[in-house]
């Protein structure tokens, strides 16, 4: 006779950096109503790793008690901004809330938050979800008075998902031996703009389409790690000593899709190109990560870093267009804009894991450290920043287009707005101060 063991599905297991415990403790001591924030790390099929946590930034107007119910829109916007600052392998895993409010109510609140956050972040992805993606997100409720923590997960793919209890364990050096795979990748995109619709929103749509095509090419591209094509299931740190940091260099080979879906020749109102190179990287947990994971995370980072920078630039342009609607500015024939460069900052002094930020050419490092503090609650000095991976873009006289005459050649550099300012209409936006414009007119 057989004995059937019916066990419920096991809950997830979160391994959390010690520093996060200290951070949450500190927040408990603030005694400021309810405090929300994001939990950041990496999920794997077996367990999840939380590397850092960051509180939702305080809104300027409500410096006083933030009130008992968190501002959902604000939390989501914060998550969106933070997402842009996370290299491959790091993502927003969930939401924490520090409140002494009723546990059941809190669960409802935090469930709403985590679904909203996840939906927004995944709606901005330009790649297709993979079968092996983890779709569980975590909610952590800390009662500041009793210091009790309640950790539960929801499957965000299922809107009716019920809370499942999960393990929450603190550990030191969670990511101290994580490995990193990186590459420098060439970007060379050229897309037409529709006839009579060449505004910034059209650029956004056209470039997004092209980025999706590129994402698909990268997805099916061949990936070499340290010069070798390895089988998907090969373990990256296989054979090496455990707890030794590894860095790998990747190469990606691509080919255009064979099918020609669009018409060969179409009318257009112009074109937009993005040309240059970017540094891309992905961090991998140290629990026998496979080549398949490294490839997936790196390729996603490639696409999102380009998409993020394009987004940021277009957001800038939209804002400056709003500002200058009154003035009669002649629309130039060709304009060039520098995309911001990527700068990295370690999450904590000793670990290899870094977050990143984007610096426009008219900004200084102090703006970067300000943003790191505001968004990720990281206290970093300018000397902590890694600025060696990319140099700022430089506009040269020609970008290869066959045009007869060049009148004046100077770069257009939009002034950076601070992050929250762009998103929230109430904040003060800095005007785009164009030094001068690049003209390529037809004679």
């Amino acid at each position: 006779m057989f004995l059937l063991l019916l066990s419920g599905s096991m809950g997830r297991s979160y391994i959390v950096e010690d520093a996060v415990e200290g951070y949450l403790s500190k927040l408990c001591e603030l005694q400021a109503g309810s405090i929300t924030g994001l939990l950041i790390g990496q999920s794997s099929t077996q367990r999840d790793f939380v590397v850092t946590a960051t509180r939702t930034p305080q809104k300027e107007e409500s410096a006083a008690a933030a009130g008992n119910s968190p501002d959902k829109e604000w939390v989501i916007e914060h998550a969106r901004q933070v997402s842009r600052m996370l290299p491959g392998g790091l993502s927003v895993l969930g939401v924490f809330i520090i409140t002494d409010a009723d546990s059941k109510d809190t669960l409802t609140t935090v469930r709403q938050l985590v679904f909203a956050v996840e939906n927004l972040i995944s709606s901005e992805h330009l790649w297709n979800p993979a079968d092996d993606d983890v779709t569980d997100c975590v909610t952590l409720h800390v009662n500041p008075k009793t210091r009790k923590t309640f950790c539960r997960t929801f499957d965000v793919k299922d809107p009716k998902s019920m809370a499942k209890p999960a393990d929450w364990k603190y550990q030191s050096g969670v990511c101290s031996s994580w490995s990193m795979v990186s590459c420098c990748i060439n970007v060379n995109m050229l897309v037409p703009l529709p006839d009579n619709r060449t505004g910034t929103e059209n650029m956004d749509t056209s470039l997004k389409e092209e980025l999706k095509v590129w994402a698909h090419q990268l997805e099916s591209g061949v990936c070499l790690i340290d010069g070798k094509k390895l089988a998907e299931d090969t373990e990256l740190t296989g054979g090496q000593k455990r707890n030794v940091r590894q860095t790998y260099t990747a190469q990606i080979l691509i080919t255009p899709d064979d099918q020609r879906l669009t018409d060969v020749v179409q009318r257009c109102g112009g074109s937009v190109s993005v040309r240059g190179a970017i540094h891309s990287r992905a961090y991998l947990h140290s629990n026998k990560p496979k080549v398949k994971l490294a490839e997936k995370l790196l390729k996603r980072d490639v696409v999102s870093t380009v998409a993020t920078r394009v987004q940021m630039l277009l957001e800038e342009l939209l804002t400056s267009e709003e500002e200058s609607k009154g003035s009669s500015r002649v629309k130039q024939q060709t304009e060039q804009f520098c995309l911001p460069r990527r700068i990295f900052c370690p999450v904590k002094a000793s670990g290899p894991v870094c977050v990143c930020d984007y610096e426009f050419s008219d900004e200084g490092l102090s703006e970067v450290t300000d943003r790191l503090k505001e968004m990720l609650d990281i206290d970093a000095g300018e000397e902590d920043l890694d600025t060696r991976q990319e140099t700022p873009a430089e506009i040269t006289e020609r970008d290869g287009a066959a045009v007869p005459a060049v009148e004046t050649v100077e770069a257009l550099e939009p002034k950076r707005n601070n992050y929250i300012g762009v998103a929230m209409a109430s904040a003060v936006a800095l005007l785009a101060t164009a030094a001068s414009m690049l003209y390529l007119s037809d004679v």
Partner: protein
Amino acid sequence: MVVTVSQSFDTGTILRVRGPLEFKCQLDRTDALLIHKCISTTFEMLHSQVKSESCVLTICDSPVIIWPNRGVYATPEEISPNMLCEDIHQWIQTDEQESAGKRSAKKKSKKSSAVSVINLRLMMEATKTGPLSAPILSKTVQKSHFLSTTLPIDCVVHTTCNDTIKDAFERLLEALTHQLCEMEKVILQHMKGTTLLIPEPLHFLLPEPKGLVTMVYPAGVPDSQLEAQRKELHQQFDLPNDWPYFRRAAAYHFPNEPYKDGYLRNPHLVLTHPSLDNGKVYLVQGIYSYRHYMQDHMDDNGWGCAYRSLQTICSWFQQQGYVERAVPTHKEIQQALVDVGDKQASFVGSRQWIGSIEVQAVLNQLLGVTSKIMFVSQGSDLASKGRELANHFLTEGTPIMIGGGVLAHTILGVAWSETTGQIRYLILDPHYTGAEDLQVITDKGWCGWKGPDFWDQTAYYNLCLPQRPKVI
């Protein structure tokens, strides 16, 4: 000017590179000259792409990747530029390797195609080594046209057993560069306003010693409009003007590539031909597909043999490029006979047999092909038709339909000795009802050499000998 190979085609290895190359540009003007300049500039960019260090050739079904412009650097490390090209085969995983035990014994008795093909894929390396500067977004506002397509690159290089990887890849690069030039020519030549035709490469196998040549044709322009070009090519290669070497349908079919329609091509090629005293073998020229009972979900067992023989003949005309229409179905054949007044309307959909006369009529009606009829009053007389059959295969080279007694067959060739009068007939039997299994078909003689006793000695026979149009 074309890239040719002058060596025996049956030996060595063919390297074939295929891959799409993105072709994008903004056509600023409707001025033809400026458009041409725009296109040429884009081609210049493609040339430098192909010559750059980012150009990569990957060998299909293998872990081998080669950077031809970085001193022919390869991964895995064991592959060095001075290795012999044919050694690449060791790295390629083939289907045969997986079922090696089962198949090898039987396979050895058959002649396999002597030239081997290594397929490569053209790719670009998107990554590069730093340092690098962040990207620039450039926006141009101008009413114009945008051209976006991919060029279907397809180059071949024929290597001998002595060629090293370095030699072979240098030649491949030359072939790639040359093909880009040809493609540019074709685009510019056929460009009308802003309509553009995609250049398509095709390979043609010319008689020894010329070997495999590659031509670039404009997509969508039918063979009938390219006759002048073909005339030039025939002159250039010193080819007779009565065989269409350069029609699209005649493009070389690479060995081991399955035909999409699933029919077997030229099953007779694996047979060992009879050797008669002072005898010679005269065979069908070109390529045909084997058509027989039960194909296309059509159960014509017992009545369709002549139809199948006719279909085999039609496939020959299609595959040499003489006609573009697909091989007709039984119904279409019957309809054609009704249309010429040979049969009543009720004939369509029936299971009535047809004979050589009907075959001749249908070939004329549907394909515009004329045929000669040969009448033999008794089967035994066929033994004396050696000379005529041999001549047919020499001058026409088409398959012959023979009907008599209660059966129809296709004759693909004859082995005949002028001095001894010995004769053998290469028969393709349409009565086969099985699957497209080359081994079964040749082992069991569904395609095979028969003696004079194959024929019903007392029955009379009619043969339909299709005449090949003398065009290119």
